[in-house]
């Protein structure tokens, strides 16, 4: 066989072999556009709470890691198509997502809150400081009613395919005029421009934007948890199927749970969370 043929065959072979399946490197997908959870610095390097935590967890697992970038709206499909092995992208553990993928135990708590520009009539909304949708009860119902009234006729902006969108679409606060964006950056831009009357996301996403841009973004209403908001943020991993690949996914879930336990016990999660959020969001 001449060299030419050999080259062609090896190139073709390399196209069809999914290196991912055979290599021992753990590929972790993140968005890189949800500061301070995960974002990029000026040079394009991935930074943030989850990027730093991912390296820490990998050290505990004892394997090589690689962090890859993936648009948020294609995150779960990309995981299923084996573009990477795990998701660490501020993704909350929800029942809806659990139908499709597995999650490790939660490593951090995402606190969601509404945000408006200073001077909005939504400021000073009379609600408790926090509501848990899983607990429910009279106080939660009353707060949801107040929010429903406040949001009526307003354009509410969220990032697409998030727990925040799910909550607004759930009917808990009536029928809301929701506008969805590909990234949180775009939500922030349109909130500041006045196209959005109010936005919903992780509270830290708004405070981070307000701090960096100097725009008068203020948080209003209660902090949300439970129900559509899920149970903390965890590592998303494919459901283990049959065969060697399935076993690898199942092992990965165990590895991540073990690593999170160790990182929590050693105070790594608290330390990294405090560094990026300014408070301890670990769980």
């Amino acid at each position, binding site marked *: 066989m001449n060299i030419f043929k050999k080259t062609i065959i090896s190139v073709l072979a390399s196209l069809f072999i999914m290196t991912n399946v055979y290599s021992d490197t753990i590929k972790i997908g993140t968005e890189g556009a949800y500061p301070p959870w995960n974002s990029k610095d000026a040079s394009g390097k991935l930074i943030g709470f989850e990027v730093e935590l991912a390296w820490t967890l990998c050290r505990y697992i004892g394997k090589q890691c690689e962090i890859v970038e993936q648009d948020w*709206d294609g995150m779960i*499909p990309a995981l299923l198509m084996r573009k990477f092995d795990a998701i660490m992208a501020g993704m909350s553990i929800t029942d809806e997502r659990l139908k499709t993928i597995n999650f490790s135990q939660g490593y951090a708590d995402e606190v969601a809150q509404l945000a408006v520009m200073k001077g909005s009539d939504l400021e000073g909304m009379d609600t408790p400081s926090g509501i848990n949708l899983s607990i429910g009860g009279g106080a939660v119902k009353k707060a949801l009613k107040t929010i429903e009234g406040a949001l009526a006729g307003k354009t509410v902006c969220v990032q697409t395919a998030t727990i925040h*969108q799910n909550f607004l679409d759930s009917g808990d606060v009536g029928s809301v005029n929701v506008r969805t964006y590909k990234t949180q950056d775009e939500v922030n*831009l*349109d909130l500041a*421009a006045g196209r959005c009357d109010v936005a919903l996301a992780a509270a830290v996403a708004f405070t981070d934007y307000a701090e960096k841009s100097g725009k008068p973004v203020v948080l209003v209403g209660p902090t949300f948890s439970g129900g559509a908001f899920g149970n903390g943020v965890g590592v998303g991993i494919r459901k283990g199927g049959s065969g060697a690949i399935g076993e690898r996914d199942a092992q990965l879930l165990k590895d991540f749970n073990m690593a999170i336990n160790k990182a929590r016990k050693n105070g790594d999660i608290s330390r990294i969370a405090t560094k990026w959020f300014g408070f301890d969001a670990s769980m």
Partner: protein
Amino acid sequence: MDLELMINSFPKLLNATVVTLKLLSLSLFFGLFIGLLFAVMRMSTNLILNKFAYGYSYLFRGTPLLVQIFIIYFGFGQIEFIRESFLWIILKEPYWCAIIAFALNTGAYTSEILRSAFETIKKGYIEAGKSLGISSKIIFYKIQIPIAIRQSLPAYGNEIILMLKGTSLASTVTLMDLTGVAKYIISTTFKPIEVFIVAGSIYLFMTFLIHNFIKFLERKYNY
């Protein structure tokens, strides 16, 4: 392959197709006027008009449609005095931002298509008109324009199809067009292949209709 999802998403996607068609028809309507205006300017002997039209078509054909939409939507939204002017009534709405971007873009291409169509008209036709004592205005409306329209049909048909596909970018500025709704369904089902196959088929079917309509016109106005 999740056949049930494909069947269930079909009516939702068909509803969204209405938005796509509205975007397309309004953009083409305004784009045709812009195109005709700039084509005439390009043929003008007035150097300023001519260069302005040339610069316009150069600018809009030389930059990606996505960039144009982003500049009009996110870019203008950042500028304080635009937000405080009457322009904001229109620019505040993603719908009109998309139509402005599409119309300006297709207008640039249409002006080139029409200009080249005008230039292919044989001098003899115009001279024949002149020798019969017909005024140049009537020659323009009754001889040049009909011939130019016929000449530009194949290229303009292409432009319509390109524009149809271009409207999918409206989803990047929050509009729920065919692509926007497809992405929304994917975001809750995590099954991109099934949904995009249905959405793609709808685009393909629309292209099929446009293509055959243009072919029909070409045959009808063949001479």
